[in-house]
């Protein structure tokens, strides 16, 4: 019977098999390591950009969203938004921003642990990172929608600007402002990590095939012995 630990971690690689196909068992670690590095880098670079263009702002107004804070012309945009009754941007996603760094460090730890796990549980450990960029965009949409649809009806321009949801990627139009949103380098890295991990799922499936066969053979042998 495999031990509990073996059930979680996956079957041991016999020493003979490991030395014969060394590379085969090292390769699955590579996408994980790369994904960790990409996520780590993305902590420091922008995830999302929003630019507002209007005649009065020849240089445009830009917001840059990092994983846990906003920079750029936030005050100016908040100042403009007060005319239409939108809440200050910093009030959005406060919970998400407060846990973002810790959550991403957790994701990286999970990936690091997954390197040593040859069972299917490893996929569970990678799942948060695979889902992460999609969750980010979904959350962004949620807040943009929430802020854009819930305008203060007593605001000066509430009659002129109807509730709206600007596109989270691509172009939109609000009043005299053209909005252009595009993914930041951080989000792109997160997507690369996500796709890399999807590929890793296939890769590890191939790499650990001999182990699974070995385990199967062992199980059959054990069953045969117990029947006998």
């Amino acid at each position, binding site marked *: 019977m495999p031990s509990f630990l073996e059930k979680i971690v996956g079957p041991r690689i016999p020493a003979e098999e490991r030395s014969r196909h060394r590379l085969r068992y090292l390769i699955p670690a590579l996408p994980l390591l790369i994904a960790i590095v990409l996520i780590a880098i993305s902590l420091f670079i922008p995830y999302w950009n929003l630019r507002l263009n209007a005649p009065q*702002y020849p240089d445009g107004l830009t917001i840059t969203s990092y994983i846990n804070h906003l920079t750029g*012309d936030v*005050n*100016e945009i908040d*100042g403009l938004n007060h*005319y239409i009754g939108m809440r200050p941007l910093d009030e959005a996603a406060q919970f998400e921003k407060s846990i973002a760094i810790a959550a991403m460090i957790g994701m990286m730890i999970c990936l690091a642990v997954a390197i040593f796990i040859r069972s299917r549980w490893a996929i569970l450990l990678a799942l948060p990172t695979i889902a992460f960029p999609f969750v980010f965009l979904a959350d962004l949409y949620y807040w943009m929608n929430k802020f854009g649809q819930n305008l203060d009806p007593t605001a*000066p321009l509430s009659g002129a600007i109807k509730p709206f949801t600007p596109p989270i990627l691509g172009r939109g139009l609000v009043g005299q402002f053209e909005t252009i949103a595009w993914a930041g380098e951080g989000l792109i890295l997160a997507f690369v990590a996500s796709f890399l991990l999807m590929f890793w799922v296939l890769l590890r499936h191939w790499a650990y095939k001999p182990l699974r066969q070995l385990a199967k053979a062992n199980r059959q042998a054990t069953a045969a012995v117990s029947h006998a």
Partner: protein
Amino acid sequence: MPRHSAEVPPFLLKENQMRKLPWIGMFMAATAMPMLMTGCGPGDSASNAPKKTTNSGAGIASLEGVMEARGLTPDDMLAAAKTYVPSGQHDEAMIFASGGHSGQVFVIGVPSMRMLRSIGVFTPEPWQGWGYGSGDDIIKAGNAPGQELTWGDSHHPALSETNGSYDGEWLFINDKANARIATIDLRDFETKQILKNPVSMSDHGGAFVTPDTEYVIEGGQYATPLGWKYAPMEEYKTEYRGMVTFWKFDREAGRLDESKSFAIELPPYWQDLMDAGKNDSKGWLFGNSINTEMATGMLNEGDPPFEAGVSQRDMDYLHVMHMDKIIEIYKAGKFEKVNDFPVISLQTLIDEGVLYFIGEPKSPHGVDITPNGQYIVISGKLDPHVTIYGFDQIQKAIADKNFSSTDPFGVPVLDFDACKVAQVEVGLGPLHTQFDDKGYAYTSLFLEPAVARWSLGGEYGKLNPEEDWSLVGKTSVHYNIGHLLTYEGDTVSPKGKYLVAMNKWAIDRFAPTGPLLPQNFQLLDIAETGENMPLLYDMPIGVGEPHYAQMISIDKLKPWKVYPEIGWNPHTNQVDPEATQIGEERIERKGNEVHVYMTVIRSHFTPEHIDVNEGDTVVWHLTSVERAYDSTHGLAIPAYNMNLSIEPGEYTEIRFVADKPGTFPFYCSEFCSALHLEMMGYLRVKPAGVASAE
């Protein structure tokens, strides 16, 4: 009509005959020339006849069609194309012009000659709130003792220099009327300091900077008794004195440091313009004078008026001052105190051998030093020549003690011929000279009126094809030019390209505006060598009489777009401890002082309601929390005669006694947004006797 100026033109006579000329007649005759021009029929003054391009080119699509409809020549089109700056593009240079009686400084773009803005300096200026709540203390600091000054005559702007070239950091300007001097910060184009000269009553010759702006020099004008005392005119020679003041500039602090400044006492010769030596002549100072006659006007029956008395002698005195040594004398404490300000006496200057005179023809105006510092150019306004003195020659004459005489006060007078390098006959009424990058000098000719281009000699000779020290060409200007300026033309690195004639009279150049007419700035293209210096553009200045101006490349200027941080106090150049951030707005009562901590942003003041009691002192702290370029607000409190300009990020503070009970709306006075009219609030001053405001 007879031509008054048909007497023998003085410039036709040889140099040695000049002294016998009826100068005064010539001066008067030429002053009458504008009358002649307007009095003559069109045929007599065809070259000056205004072109009536009143036809419109509107609606015509082709260039040729517009030219024909408006009667424009190809030269007109060329001039238009050289000066037109399309919307959204910037000029390549800026002029900082004195605003004359407006007491301001005007900023003008070149080549478009568009007025970009004014800068409030000596005179209250409502748009900038200057003197209406903002800068009041700075203006007050320049008041004469016991006298509130509400106008000034801003005269000679001087951009700060590093190694003799403009550095685009600071601008100094004097008020001729009251001998005040101001320091303007070119990061925010705001006046930061005004000082009243403690010893001079008036100052024509200021401001001039030394090549690294260690000192700003302010020459006096009319001699007055020392210490602003009373003295009868009969005691002119003994009691009246000229003054030149040396203001130490503390670049770190961005202020003139009065505690390290001093003046020198000079004979009552009406010292006029100055120029600090540069390159070869660094450490020396040159100035001219116009009343070496020490004329006292029509004091007694039969005395000539000042205009004649002051113009009797053929030679006045070029003042040669060894500035470095004068500064040492000051530092050694060899001075007296006049009005509690250090003044080095004339006798000390003579004893220490730091003051020399050289004859200069005649009643000169400009003294201008070539970029290499080697030549000093004097324009004798009643003499058709410019006279060029060599710095090396002057040094040799001093070393050899080659003195032709001493003046009545004992100042050694250097031999004229030993110091003179050349004289160039440029024309009538030469006033001011500037330089370009091709070895030319340009002199304004008030009487002709024209701009003369002439060639320099020495190392400059090879830069142009003309013979050294010769007149090259002239362009007529309209009319009665005073100063001229070329592009960075009074620095060690003039750029050439453009010249602006600062004309005092406009006469027929613009559509008539009643008897008072604007001044006329004319832009000339001086980029070619030779005679050709085409006129490009006429710019009317209808808000004061600019006296002098300087032109600087905009590449050298580093103005702020908005103040560096929210709550920036422009006068302390840091975030003010009383600045208010969003959320911190409040009203605090401290005894009978009510402190209002207000933020300003489109389109509201916070707080909007202010209740005080009659007799309270209101201290109103305003912080613009704006960060957008050009989002300026105003604060008008008309009931208390106040108005402010609050620029993005700026902190400003006003203080007044609420001595007028009532309900007073205050509002934003700078159109800021779609809801600008709604940007207002109420100040309520509860009359004494009614239950108090909290």
